[in-house]
C-alpha cells in the first residue's frame, strides 16, 4: 500500500535532525513533531500573555504577526508530517492550496472593506 519512502521515513524510530543529529525515540519523526507542536504552543501562550498589556501599535502588530506565524508553522507541521503531504502524491498539495489561496484573497478583501455607520458589516 505505502511506498518505500513512506515506510522508511514513518516506520523508523531513528530520526536525523538538523543541529541535533541522529536520535532514537518511540514513534520517530511523529514524536519529534509532537514535541515541536507542544513547544510552539507554550511559546504561543507566552507571547500572547507577555505582550498582552504592552501598549503601542508596533508591539501589537508584532504580537499578532508572531502568533499567526507560529500557528501557521504548527499547521504546516501537521499537514506536512501527520497528513503525509511530504511523501504523498504532490497533486494533494494543489487540492489543499487552491481553496486556501482563494479564501485568503477573499478575507483580505473583506478586511479592507470600510465599516459603515453603525457597523455596516453587521
Amino acid at each position, binding site marked *: *500500500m*505505502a*511506498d518505500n519512502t513512506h*515506510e522508511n521515513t*514513518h*516506520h523508523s524510530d531513528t530520526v536525523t535532525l538538523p543541529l541535533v543529529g541522529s536520535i532514537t525515540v518511540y*514513534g520517530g519523526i*511523529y*514524536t519529534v*513533531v*509532537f514535541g515541536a*507542536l*507542544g513547544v510552539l*504552543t507554550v511559546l*504561543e*501562550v507566552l*507571547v*500572547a*500573555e507577555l505582550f498582552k498589556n504592552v501598549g503601542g501599535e508596533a508591539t501589537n502588530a508584532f*504580537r*499578532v504577526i508572531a*502568533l*499567526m506565524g*507560529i*500557528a501557521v508553522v*504548527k*499547521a504546516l507541521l*501537521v*499537514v506536512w*508530517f*501527520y*497528513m*503525509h503531504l511530504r511523501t*504523498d*502524491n504532490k*497533486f*494533494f498539495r494543489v*487540492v*489543499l492550496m*487552491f*481553496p*486556501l489561496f*482563494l*479564501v485568503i484573497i*477573499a*478575507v483580505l478583501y*473583506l*478586511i479592507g472593506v470600510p*465599516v459603515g455607520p453603525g*457597523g455596516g*458589516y*453587521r
Partner: protein
Amino acid sequence: MAELTAHAGAHSDNAHKKLDANNKKLAMWLYLASEVVIFSVLIGAYAVFRFNEPEIVKNVHKELGIALVTVNTFILLMSSWAMVLALRAIEMGKRREFMLWMSGVVGMGVVFLLGQYIEYRELAHLAITLDSISPDFGGFGMRFYAPTAFHGAHVLIGVLLGLQVLWLGHKGFYDNNPIGVEAFGLYWHFVDVVWIILFTLIYLI
C-alpha cells in the same frame, strides 16, 4: 516462466492497490478542500470582527482566560499524535498497539468535547449568547460560536467515526489494507489543523 508471470501478477496487484489507495486519499482531500472553504468563511467572519471590534474581544479575553482552552489544545494535539501512531502500528501489522492508540484518539476527542462544554457554560454565565447585544460583548457570540461549535461538531463526528474504525480494526478489517485508517487520520488531523488556527485567532490574538 511461471515464476515470471506470478511476479508480474503480484507487481500489477501492488500497483492496482497503490492506485486504489491514492484515489481514496484524493477523495478525502477533495472533501477536506470543501471543508477548508466552509471553515475559512467562518474564520474570516471572525477575523473581520476582531479587526473592527478589538475592545469587545479584549473584554471577552479578560473574563474568559486561556487555561482551559490551552489544556484542550494540548489534548487535541496529543490525539493527533496518537492517530499517526495508530496508523503506523496498523501499517506495521501490530493490531493490539493500533487498538490502544486508536482508543486514545477517541478518548481524547471525548475529553476535548467535555472541555468545550465547560467553556460554553462559562460563556453562558457571562450572558455571551448567539444574539447578545450588551455593549461589552455585543456581536461576539455569533462570531465565536459559529466556528467553534462547527468545529466541535466535527470532533463529535470524528469520535463516532473513530469508534467505527476501532470496531472494524478489532475485527481485523485493516490488517491487510489500512487505507481506511489513513483516510480517517486525514480527517482527524484536519480537525486538529483547524483548531490550531482557531486557538490562536480567537483566544490568543
